[in-house]
């Protein structure tokens, strides 16, 4: 079973069209294995992206070096999944 230990979901806020283009470039980097939950299209809509642990550093450096604002929406995805599993087990009981 694939686990998501250390994977984070980032909420990225582009401030203009140029940053949207930079995010679209980021999206095209297949080796980072990013899972875009919302796609970069409009500065008004935040972009949520799930980032595998091994790509976190690269993605954050990319965002910071391009002065693109972001926050960590989910700190550790596996913890969310574990908590949900626990909740499901207790509600089944």
């Amino acid at each position: 079973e694939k686990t998501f230990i250390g994977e984070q979901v980032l909420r990225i806020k582009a401030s203009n069209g140029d940053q949207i283009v930079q995010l679209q470039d980021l999206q095209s980097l297949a080796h980072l294995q990013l899972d875009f939950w919302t796609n970069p299209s409009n500065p008004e809509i935040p972009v949520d992206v799930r980032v595998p642990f091994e790509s976190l550093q690269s993605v954050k450096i990319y965002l910071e070096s391009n002065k693109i604002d972001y926050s960590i929406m989910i700190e550790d995805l596996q913890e969310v999944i574990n908590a949900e599993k626990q909740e499901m087990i207790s509600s089944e009981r």
Partner: protein
Amino acid sequence: KERNSGAFNYGAYHTLDNLYRAIDAIMLDYKSIVSKQLIGHSYEGRPLYVIKFSTGANRPGIWIDAGIHSREWVTQATALWTAHKLAAEYGKDAFVTSLLNNYDVFLLPVTNPDGYAFTHTTNRMWRKTRSIRSGSRCVGVDPNRNWNAGFGGPGASSDPCSDSYFGPKAESEVEVKAVADFIRGHSNIKGFISIHSYSQLLMFPYGYKCTKPADFEELNDVGNAAAMALRSLYGTQYKVGTICSTIYQASGGSIDWTYDVGIKYSFAFELRDTGRYGFLLPANQILPTAQETWLGLKKILEHIRDNPY
């Protein structure tokens, strides 16, 4: 164990077999109006079951599907809850009764069963089909980029490893082809509603191009009325508009195809989910989501009922 169709626990995750048993339970409890129709099989051979609600012969149809991206449980749960609602309220609720006295409703609660099974066993965040093709190390196609509407255009990827890979050709995915064949075969579907999850949107065509559809004003009015009705229950705010204006240009989507083949009332819901739970919407939010969605859905269904074409 679920004792009957009214005792289903929507707050818990269920295996595909469990969901199919729940469909059978609804069918058994309401057999005079509910039946199950096999419309095809997934790539890995799982059945694609449509719940058919019908009270008479030769009626026009309304299609509802859910869970094309498999990983958001709230989507399938909402579809199943809606199925039970339609069955249980026929003969009791004036709206449901008049709807089903005029239209057949076809509801596909699990549009991507392979993806659904895969999220339960191997990768919780999977969203594609599970088709394999020679020459590629990556598996699956995004089933909502695989319809024959602007296929292969902007907002879809040609990279088989991408989560939005459009596939080798339109309808290459048997799950997509099964639904398209059903719609073509029926030939009298008047409404097509696709239920997805994440980001609270109610969309209508187009996504593969950024021009307004011919029925823009009407679809926009219906969509806004639906969003307002939905919001009345818990205050959940929806954005309404074309796919291109509300989210982004995305080609090969289902409602663009249905609109282009003549189904005027083609809509897609993106249900309540802020992303903060990673598609694991807390159990106590599942039923409220289904309930509020019903109010929006009802507005659209009412409009379809009252505006035959």
